[in-house]
């Protein structure tokens, strides 16, 4: 009988203590009253004077160098806008959670933001592998998911994911435009790709093949962000006799690729997509070797070059950086965060005084946003992708310089077309 009593009490102990431990953090369940699609009139996280937004960012982990500055820049721009009166009388707050570029952590973080913190919308959530893991959760909870910080084409699926929107040009567009430059300037050379082993690398390589023709790539090497040994892949590129390598890499892996190639005494022309080519970020890895290793590297840009201080947007962002972002070294990441925050403010403003999740999604689908970007946005009810093109840049002496026209194109087999219109100047008060 003694045994029985002990067993009984053990069970009671478990149940009682579980209830106590967990009960401390429980809150009453509330039946969610979210409507559907653009008719969604719910507005959690919005009060008469404030809007709460959330984002998941790699503040630690393999993608943190460089990218960890983006959310700080976004918060800084919102603080600047709030000081100027906010948007429609509401101050914008951004809650940032670190996911370490690990999809599992993103899954938990996103649920914390949506279910626990009740954010109104997600904005600029960063990463292809990370954000892909939460698309269905976002759809189920009907959360506006604006301007995902990645060029995957997954964000542009309006029927499947009606509240998710991209922002930067997708990697296929980049691949097409970079491929076009390769075709015109490095004709007859052996072309290969080195890309991240997910949609980032796949979409990019597909873009290059759309211009150069399928089967035109001698080899397509891939890496995983959690394995920093790229020796085998770079060795394979060298062995295949690749003369031009188009890289779809995060900055850390651009640096690893260039450094490993140099160590293997492998000389090739590197063409690096926008997200992996920020010079300030790469200098953090390559130190004094930055200038020689980056000499002649080709990349592309869809916004003004961060060093172009004559541009009104760069002047505005540098001012905000000095006042609200602890004067962080001004680079492509700071520019990215602030430009994305500006588009967010435009969308919130366009959604109107009676702000709901439905009105925000409708406002982005209506589109018509402007900003520092070199090309127009593609936003419409049937297109949830962002910027429509880029301009090729070439790095000389550690400085990127634009070359040739600004191109727009689609992510299919469509031709490149030249953009002639100039982006507008930055507004004097920095508010849309």
């Amino acid at each position, binding site marked *: 009988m003694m045994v029985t009593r002990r067993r009984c009490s053990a069970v009671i102990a478990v149940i009682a203590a579980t209830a106590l431990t967990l009960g401390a953090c429980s809150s009453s369940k509330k039946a*969610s009253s979210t409507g559907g699609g653009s008719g969604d009139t719910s507005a959690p996280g919005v009060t008469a004077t404030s809007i709460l937004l959330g984002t998941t960012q790699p503040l630690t982990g393999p993608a943190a160098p460089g990218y960890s500055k983006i959310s700080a820049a976004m918060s800084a721009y919102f603080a600047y806008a709030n000081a100027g009166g906010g948007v429609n009388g509401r101050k914008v707050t951004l809650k940032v959670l670190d996911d370490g570029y690990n999809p599992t952590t993103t899954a938990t973080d996103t649920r914390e933001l949506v279910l626990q913190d009740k954010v109104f919308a997600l904005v600029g959530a960063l990463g292809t592998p990370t954000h892909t893991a939460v698309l269905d959760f976002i759809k189920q909870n009907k959360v506006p998911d604006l301007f995902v910080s990645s060029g995957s084409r997954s964000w542009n699926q309006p029927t499947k994911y009606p509240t998710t929107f991209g922002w930067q040009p997708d990697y296929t567009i980049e691949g097409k435009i970079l491929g076009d430059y390769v075709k015109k300037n490095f004709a007859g050379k052996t072309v290969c790709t080195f890309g991240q082993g997910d949609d980032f690398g796949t979409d990019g390589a597909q873009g290059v093949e759309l211009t150069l023709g399928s089967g035109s790539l001698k080899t397509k090497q891939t890496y995983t962000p959690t394995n920093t040994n790229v020796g085998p892949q770079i060795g394979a590129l060298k062995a295949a006799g690749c003369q031009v390598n188009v890289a779809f890499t995060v900055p850390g892996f651009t640096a690893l690729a260039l450094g490993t190639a140099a160590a293997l005494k492998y000389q090739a022309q590197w063409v690096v997509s926008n997200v992996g080519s920020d010079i300030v970020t790469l200098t953090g890895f390559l130190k004094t070797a930055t200038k020689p290793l980056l000499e002649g590297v080709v990349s592309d840009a869809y916004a003004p070059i961060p060093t172009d201080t004559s541009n009104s947007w760069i002047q505005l962002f540098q001012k905000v950086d000095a006042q609200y972002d602890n004067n962080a070294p001004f680079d492509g990441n700071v520019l990215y965060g602030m430009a994305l925050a500006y588009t967010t403010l435009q969308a919130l403003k366009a959604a109107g005084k009676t702000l709901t999740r439905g009105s925000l999604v409708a406002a982005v689908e209506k589109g018509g946003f402007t900003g520092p970007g070199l090309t127009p946005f593609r936003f419409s009810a049937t297109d949830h992708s962002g910027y429509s093109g880029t301009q090729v840049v070439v790095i000389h002496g550690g400085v990127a310089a634009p070359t040739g026209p600004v191109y727009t194109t689609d992510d299919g087999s469509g031709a490149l077309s030249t953009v002639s219109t100039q982006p507008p100047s930055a507004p004097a008060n920095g508010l849309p």
Partner: protein
Amino acid sequence: MRRLAHLWSASTLARHVVLLAIGVAFVIVLTATFSDFHDFQLATLGAYLCAIAGLTVLTGLNGQVSLGHAALMAIGAYTVALLQMHFSNAGTTGVWVLPVSLLAGAAVTAVAGAVVGVAAARLRGPYLAGATLALGVALPSITSHYTSVFKGDQGLFVPFDGPPASLGSTFTLEHWQSWLSLFAALLVLFFLANLKRSAVGRHMRAVRDDEIASALCGLSVPRIQIQAFAVSSAAAGLGGGVLAVVLQNASPGSFDLVLSLTLLSAAVIGGLGTLTGAVWGSIVVIYLGTFIRDRVNDLHLSAASTAKLHDNLPNAVYGLMLILVMLALPGGIQGLLRRLPVFGTHRSTPHTGGSA
């Protein structure tokens, strides 16, 4: 009444069935009172509980250590993901779909575990730890070599049918996931509790305590060790499959080496060899980090120092807790509770394992 009491003490199965029913009722009440986010946390707790319970049987009951249980969870997770994708693409729906996938995940992992067990049965102490550690490191990286099947770090999407309509329109997805996960964990606990009190369980203990004596008694030591590994792996595989369903994603980041170490230390902190201890361990794993981060937030430090504390303090406290438990409480949390007069008689040798 007397007959009931007699049944209670005489029939292990009847006792466990009653406890299972109490557990199910408790889960239903608990998940209904919790918010969606806390239901989601409970769902991850259930997934880890499956694996920790399996590990505590392997290590506490059979004396084999495994530093590769996260990899076994990954086998279950990817099996479930691939099957669910197959069912989804084929347009197959029905209430049986998910249970079939989860059971298949457990079965495939059990087979893999038996294979590992064959090697493990030849290894002792640090060599066994080293071999399972290698498994834990190597297996997840397979996903980045066969990216066309496993999609590298991005992982696989896990489609599954939401809560059945009969539960009502306000029954949320997180509520449903917490049910799936905690019911799976209860089944694992039920099965393992019966196993512990069966002849197989006694054989496992005998092998742990003295292999030579067991062999002299006619037991096949390797066979029992392989059995233990297969059973433990099945529990881990089910846990992995449940985690994939809860996260709607199976990716290598979910099953890294840190998780293997976390599972083992959770089993130790909870009380090695006891299933109740596995419950304590999983509560510590899920809630300690959240609890510490919330306390850090209460301090209102600068953003930079808050981020630093968020990244490091939970690990530091967890490590400290492990050291303290090893030094002061070899029986873990469950051992401590047993020493308290309220919770029953004092049993001084936690290593022989109790039943829960």
